[in-house]
C-alpha cells in the first residue's frame, strides 16, 4: 500500500516537472531561430540531443558566430554530466538490452533529480519514466511552438520561465539538504566552485568541475 502511494507521488512530481520544465522549450525554439537555425534544425536537436543545456549552448555559440567545431565541443562538454547521472541511475533503473537504448535518451538533469528524490527503487523508476515522458513530449512541442512563433512570442523571460529550471533543481535537492549537513556542505561547495570558475572556463566546464567537491567530501 505504502509502496503504491510512493509511486503515485513520484509519478505526480515527474509529470509536474516534465510539463513545467518542458515549457522552457519555448525559450529554446525561440533562441535557436534567433541564432539563425531553421525550424527543422531546432526540432531535430530537441528530438535527438534532448538535453537542454547542450542545446542552448549550441544555439548560443552559433548565434554569437562562434566556430562550429568549438561550439559542438562546448555542447558535448555540457552533456558530460549525463554520463555521471547514468552511473548513478544504472543500478536503480536496471534497464538492459533494447530497453536500455530507449532509457538512455532520458538520462538528463530533471529525470535524475526526480528519480533520486524518491524513497525506493520502484518509485524512482516510476518517477524517471513519468518525468521522461512528460518532458520529452512538452519539450518537443514547445520547441516547435517557440521556433514557429518567435516573431510574435517576444521574450519568454517575460513569463519568468528562466527561474523554473533553478527552482526545480533546488526543490528536488531540498529534502536531502534538510536531512544531511554533509550534503549541505557538498551542495554549497559545488555551487561555489562552479561560480568561481565561470569567468575563466568555457560554458559547461564549471558545472563538471563542481564534482571536485565530491572528492573533497570522500577524502575527508
Amino acid at each position, binding site marked *: 500500500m505504502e509502496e503504491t502511494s510512493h509511486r503515485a507521488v513520484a509519478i505526480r512530481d515527474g509529470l509536474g516537472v516534465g510539463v513545467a520544465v518542458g515549457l522552457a522549450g519555448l525559450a529554446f525554439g525561440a533562441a535557436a531561430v534567433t541564432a539563425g537555425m531553421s525550424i527543422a534544425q531546432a526540432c531535430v536537436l530537441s528530438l535527438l540531443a534532448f538535453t537542454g543545456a547542450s542545446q542552448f549552448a549550441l544555439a*548560443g555559440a552559433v548565434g554569437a558566430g562562434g566556430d*562550429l567545431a568549438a561550439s559542438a565541443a562546448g555542447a558535448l562538454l555540457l552533456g558530460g554530466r549525463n554520463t555521471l547521472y547514468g552511473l548513478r541511475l544504472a543500478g536503480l533503473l536496471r534497464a538492459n538490452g533494447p530497453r536500455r537504448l530507449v532509457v538512455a535518451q532520458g538520462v538528463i538533469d530533471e529525470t535524475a533529480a526526480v528519480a533520486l528524490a524518491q524513497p525506493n527503487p520502484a518509485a524512482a523508476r516510476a518517477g524517471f519514466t513519468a518525468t521522461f515522458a512528460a518532458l520529452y513530449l512538452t519539450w518537443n512541442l514547445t520547441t516547435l511552438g517557440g521556433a514557429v512563433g518567435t516573431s510574435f512570442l517576444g521574450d519568454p523571460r517575460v513569463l519568468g520561465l528562466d527561474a523554473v529550471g533553478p527552482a526545480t533543481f533546488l526543490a528536488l535537492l531540498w529534502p536531502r539538504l534538510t536531512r544531511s549537513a554533509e550534503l549541505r556542505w557538498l551542495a554549497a561547495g559545488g555551487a561555489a566552485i562552479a561560480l568561481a570558475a*565561470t569567468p575563466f572556463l568555457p560554458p559547461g566546464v564549471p558545472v563538471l568541475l563542481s564534482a571536485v567537491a565530491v572528492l573533497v567530501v570522500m577524502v575527508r
Partner: protein
Amino acid sequence: MTLWWAIAVVCAGCYVLKLAGLAAPRWVLEHPVVSRFAELVPVALLAALVAVQMFSEQGRLQVDPARTAGLAAAVVALLLRAPFLVVLLIAAAITALVRVFSG
C-alpha cells in the same frame, strides 16, 4: 563544418554520453569508491547548475534581480513546505512580476 554537421555531432555525442554511464560494466558500478562518488555527484552537479543558471549570463557572473527574487520566493515556499508544483509556480510568477514592475 556546416551547421547540419555540427547538429549531427551534438545529437550523436549527447546520446553516447548518456548511454555510457548506464552501460558501464557491473564491476565498475559496484566498486565502493565509484558507487559512493556516483551517489554524491548529482548533489554537487545540481547545486552547481542552480548557481550557474541563477548567477551567470554568457560566461560572466551577473545577478538578475527578478530571477533572484523568484528563487528567494521559492526558498520561502520550500521552508513553508509548499508542494513541489506550487514552488515552481511561485518562482516563475515572482520573477515575471518583478520584471513587470522593474520595467
